[in-house]
């Protein structure tokens, strides 16, 4: 069994061990690694933002291509900084209003189209489902299951009437669908967390300690 001679691999492995040490209990090594990560992330992001955004979209077009019009949105963006001057802090609302207005304008029709109309269409049973009734995505069987699941789940969250009679039955079926959904999410979450552990241990046993080829 050999070990890596790369100092960066050693550094990464030791910092991983520092973080894992929290599983036993909180300690200064964990705190050191945690603070180092936070500081490095901020420093890294500043450099990336400057290189990929400020330089590409502002400095180069203005200084090299003389697109002076770009100074207008830049000036509006600078108004955010007035939050540090209490008397003029209301000026900060201008860029906020512009950002909110633009995003809402873009988002509203598209969200209705992608997240509501298309999803409602997906819930409806249609003739194409009869072509391959057992298809797990577009078949009739799954179509019926989805339609029943959606209707029953919505009735569970319908609070304007007491859950009695047919409404009670439907709400009970709905809660089963909700529980199965939670179970699926939990199962996937377990796999996700274990995968992260596996990824780190793979790094340590392949690149740091050459135990696995």
């Amino acid at each position, binding site marked *: 069994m050999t070990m890596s001679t790369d100092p960066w691999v050693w550094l990464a492995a030791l910092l991983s061990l520092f973080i894992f040490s929290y*599983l*036993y209990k909180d300690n200064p090594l964990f705190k050191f690694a945690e603070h180092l990560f936070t500081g490095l*992330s901020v420093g*890294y*992001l500043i450099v*990336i*933002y400057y290189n*990929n*955004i400020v330089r*590409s*979209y502002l400095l*180069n*077009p203005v200084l090299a291509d003389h697109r002076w019009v770009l100074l207008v949105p830049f000036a509006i963006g600078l108004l955010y900084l007035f939050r540090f001057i209490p008397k003029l802090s209301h000026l900060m609302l201008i860029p906020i209003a512009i950002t909110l207005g633009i995003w809402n304008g*873009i*988002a509203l029709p*598209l*969200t209705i*189209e*992608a*997240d509501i109309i*298309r*999803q409602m*269409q*997906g819930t409806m049973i249609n003739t194409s489902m009869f072509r391959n009734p057992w298809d*797990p*995505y*577009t078949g009739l069987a*799954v179509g019926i299951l*989805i339609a029943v699941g959606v209707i029953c789940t919505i009735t569970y969250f319908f609070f304007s009437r007491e859950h009695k009679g047919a409404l009670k039955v439907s709400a009970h079926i709905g809660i089963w669908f909700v529980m199965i*959904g939670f179970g*699926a*999410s939990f199962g*996937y*979450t*377990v*796999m*996700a967390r*274990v*995968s*992260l*552990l*596996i*990824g*780190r*241990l*793979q790094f340590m*046993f392949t690149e740091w300690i050459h*135990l*696995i080829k």
Partner: protein
Amino acid sequence: MKFLIALSKIDRRVVYLLLALAVVVPMIVSFNVRFHVDRSTRDLFEAVDRIPPGGQPLMLVFDYDPQIMPELDPMATAILRHCFARGIRVVGVTTGAQGAALGERAMARAAAEHGKRIGEDYCYFGYKLFLSMIYFGENARRALPVDHYGRPFDSLPMMRGIRNYDDIPLVIDLAGSSILNSWIVYMGARYHVRLGAGVTAVMAPDFYQFLQTGQLAGQLSGMKGAAEYEQLVVERGYAPAKGLASRAMNAISASHLLLIALIVMGNVGYFAARRAKPKNPQGGA
């Protein structure tokens, strides 16, 4: 009865140790767990495979950061190996700043394996604002004026003729956040971009409905999705051996068995403790 009650009171550090063993031992002691390739993975693979070699490029979006790298990096590697082995050009980009270095590393590594040249066979634009990626639908050249290394859009031979999303046959977003939903809403609904996805296992159930409606061409779910894609890449002869995700499947299976056992033990212990509790007919605390 005491033994059964003790099952629900195992020290958490013992659980951590058992989990570590369940992950490490299958990594060292090699055995092959067979797994089924999900249809959503196969659909994404076929969507990539249908792109003509040397033609319009696939766009791969590295919307992930180091925290979730073990799940999404193997997906990126498998997709890139598939594309480069088949001669499909790739445009790489990320809308998450921390993904910039990860995407660069994944692309450079896969390109070096297949002898691909930057600018001709692949391009990497690094971190761009999501707003820029929306604007790509109107004017690709102005949305991505320079690549990650500062080279102008026009100087990249493979980007000639790329006007907007109409010239991108497939966009695959490897996402560890709800940014994938934004891709579906903004690029899918506005520009009718054909989208595929690679997501963390935590997010996977939230996006299955988009497969059913056809808003996603296919989806890779967590490390298992990556392992399935690796298997298809090897089966079709695009790579000689499987990658890291396939090797992790043994550890995933062993750890899942352990966790199922722990959940059963915890419940048995809970009900045993409830049964052993003396009943107080008068109620009260």
